């Protein structure tokens, strides 16, 4: 993972093309530190990496879970991790969503469960933003069709509040109180070319309108 600063520093504000206010809440360095901390937390709470499975929720949960898996493997003294595929995978939840019929068709992404499966293991679901909790609810339903983990935990880069279901994250990169009308915009180097988390507030009437 690189140490480059992409974009403005944390806390910097700017104005987007539609007059939206954009403020950067996490830069590349903060993200790197957050993920490192989460990796150690996971290891501590799970007493090591045995019987651990990390499943990223597409789309941005997938690069995050890969980074976490590398961090964990390094921390356990296995820098190239014999087979990283054994530790992490992806869990697509499209078929379990409760909002399909009100929205344009969603294309599902691949689900890839590590070789050892999930039965009896500790599954850590990994996603970029925790918001209403519905995504995680769908992920839990998807998991139950695949097997019976010993325990399921949740790790997120950002918790922005406004839960609609009784769901909480075990590991949080940053707690971000937000207003409902705001948008949390996560960028990752693997998918967007840089690491950054921004809060986007709808335009107040100033600036250009598209």
């Amino acid at each position, binding site marked *: 993972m690189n140490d480059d600063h992409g974009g403005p520093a944390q806390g910097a504000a700017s104005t987007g093309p539609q007059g939206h206010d954009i403020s950067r809440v996490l830069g590349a360095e903060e993200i790197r530190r957050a993920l490192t901390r989460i990796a150690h937390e996971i290891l501590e709470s799970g007493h090591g990496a045995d019987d651990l499975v990390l499943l990223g929720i597409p789309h941005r949960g997938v690069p995050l879970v890969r980074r976490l898996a590398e961090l964990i493997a390094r921390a356990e003294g296995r820098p190239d991790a014999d087979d990283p595929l054994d530790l992490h995978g992806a869990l697509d939840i499209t*078929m379990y969503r409760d909002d399909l*019929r009100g929205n344009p*068709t969603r294309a599902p992404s*691949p689900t890839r469960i590590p070789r050892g499966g999930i039965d009896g293991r500790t599954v850590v679901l990994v996603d970029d933003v925790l918001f209403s909790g519905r995504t995680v609810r769908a992920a839990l339903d998807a998991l139950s069709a*695949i*097997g019976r983990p010993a325990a399921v935990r949740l790790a997120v880069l950002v918790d922005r509040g406004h839960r609609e279901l009784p769901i909480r994250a075990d590991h949080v990169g940053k707690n971000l109180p937000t207003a409902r009308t705001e948008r949390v915009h996560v960028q990752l180097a693997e998918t967007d070319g840089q690491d950054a988390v921004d809060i986007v507030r709808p335009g107040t009437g100033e600036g250009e309108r598209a």
Partner: protein
Amino acid sequence: MRHFIAISDLSREDALAVLATAEHMAETQSRSIRKLPTLVGTTVVNLFFEDSTRTRISFEAAAKRLSADVINFSAKGSSLSKGESLKDTALTLQAMGADAVVVRSGSSGAAHLLAHAGWIDQPIINAGDGAHEHPTQAMLDAFTLRRHLRPGDPSADLEGLHVVIVGDILHSRVARSNVLLLTLLGARVTLVAPPALVPVGASSWPCEISYDLDAALATGPDAVMMLRVQHERMVGGGFFPTAGEYSRRYGLSTARAATLPAHTIVMHPGPMNRGLEIAGAVADSPRSVIVEQVASGVFVRMAVLYHLLATDAREAHRDR
């Protein structure tokens, strides 16, 4: 995508998207719990004017794996056989709360009519209309081809592949849909049939046409697809003097299959006439993917149902 009526209406993007979803569905079907909640609360109606247990069961399985409810209307012993019109039947189904209708008819254009006549506004899936199209069959054929001939690349198209399709092209909706879809996905198609079973006008199709099966097989195709021959139509309709003559010239015998490259797969939409268009031994041989086609059919039909129903109906309206 509002309806799934014909490959001629399908874009390459949509075809690949449905195939991608079918791959996803296939993966879910190897889990311990194969049922998905995706279409819970919806009702899919199988409206089958023609008997077809295989296709109907395939659609039923697909709908149920997605937790949809299924209602079967088949021709025998129902108001359909008493001559109720397609229009009245459709209105009845809508009144009963159908969310999607899968229709199989002996009349070319029946699915198109249901979709566009303005009687009902549910999504329509064509399970075969006369000799016109059988789009989900073509999709499952493409899915199967891709798995075998482009393994490990679930987003690949069929560029560079050569498929030979043999049989009664004139009366075959499977042939028509396959010619369209295979060429849409970049494959090269050769149709092999006796001259009387090649439609006048097929010369404008994007494929080659040959009367000589041995010559076509000698080119080393990647897949050979045998179509079912209807004995009564053939001999009774004067297209062929005897079944034996047809078999000798256009049947995939053991000897002919032996001349094929090692990687070539043999396909058949079913049901087969063992000994007529295909030798039993060939149907049972390792290069035959006929049984796998059936499983592929369920995945593909799950994918089609997903694309039509698990979506914003207004957005889907925009497309067609």
